[in-house]
């Protein structure tokens, strides 16, 4: 049991326990905070896998962006101290059963499947390599998806403003 292994299990436990708490707690603010810790756990797993750039993006976009956005929308839409309504027991039981059956099915498939590893030389996921590949217009480059994502983000930006805009009352 090396230190690396212990760290991995610790990160896995953080991710799963806080994820589970996030979907079961009845206080919505706490659910957002638990989600935050779960996402930090996933960023830790990326660090553990030595994909530092993805881990940094995960922290910047999810922890710094999306969770903060969710927290603001909670402040805007919820009364303080109000708990979520309790769910029917039958609904909970059947949801848990469905989720568990799906989980068991995937795990059974996974246990029977054997993956084959390649023996080719690995490309280090450094920022230099990622940047070269991201903006490459050659074969296996990602310049076109990059541009499409930028258009999508622009469209989402404009769409958000239009959707959330207050409509002025008609002047008589």
């Amino acid at each position, binding site marked *: 049991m090396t230190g690396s292994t212990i760290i991995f299990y610790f990160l896995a436990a953080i991710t799963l326990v806080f994820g589970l708490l996030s979907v079961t707690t009845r206080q919505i603010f706490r659910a*957002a905070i638990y989600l935050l810790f779960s996402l930090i756990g996933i960023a830790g797993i990326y660090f553990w896998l030595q994909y530092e750039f993805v881990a940094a993006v995960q922290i910047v976009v999810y922890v710094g962006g999306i969770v903060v956005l969710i927290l603001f929308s909670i402040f805007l839409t919820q009364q303080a101290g109000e708990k979520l309504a309790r769910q029917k027991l039958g609904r909970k039981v059947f949801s848990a059963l469905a989720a568990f059956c799906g989980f068991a099915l995937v795990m059974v498939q*996974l246990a029977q499947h054997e993956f084959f590893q390649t023996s080719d030389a690995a490309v280090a996921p450094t920022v230099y390599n990622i940047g070269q590949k991201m903006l490459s217009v050659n074969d296996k480059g990602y310049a076109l998806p990059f541009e499409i994502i930028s258009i999508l983000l622009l469209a989402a930006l404009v769409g958000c403003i239009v959707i959330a805009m207050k409509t002025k009352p008609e002047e008589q």
Partner: protein
Amino acid sequence: MQPGLYHILFISCALFFIGVYGFFTRKNLITMLMSIELILNSVNLNFIAFNKYLWPQQMDGLFFTLFIIAIAAAEAAVAIAIIINLYRSHKSIDVESAEDLKY
């Protein structure tokens, strides 16, 4: 036992079905959005694990993860705009209060 591909696949699978459970049981739109974020994160973890252990000579999984994160950010922003608009017109973000088109 040294953690490998199967351990990470177990985590991502468990996280995915935790998200599915939350999506089934929750009725508040913001908590449903949180469940979707968990599901998207489990998919990202899967892509990175496959890239690291099975396909290290290319960085395709990494790019898919980056693009999924970008799309998730756009999706969360649009969803929250819709939720706030719904709250403005219905004074509630419960899915059961948003049934104007149902009948």
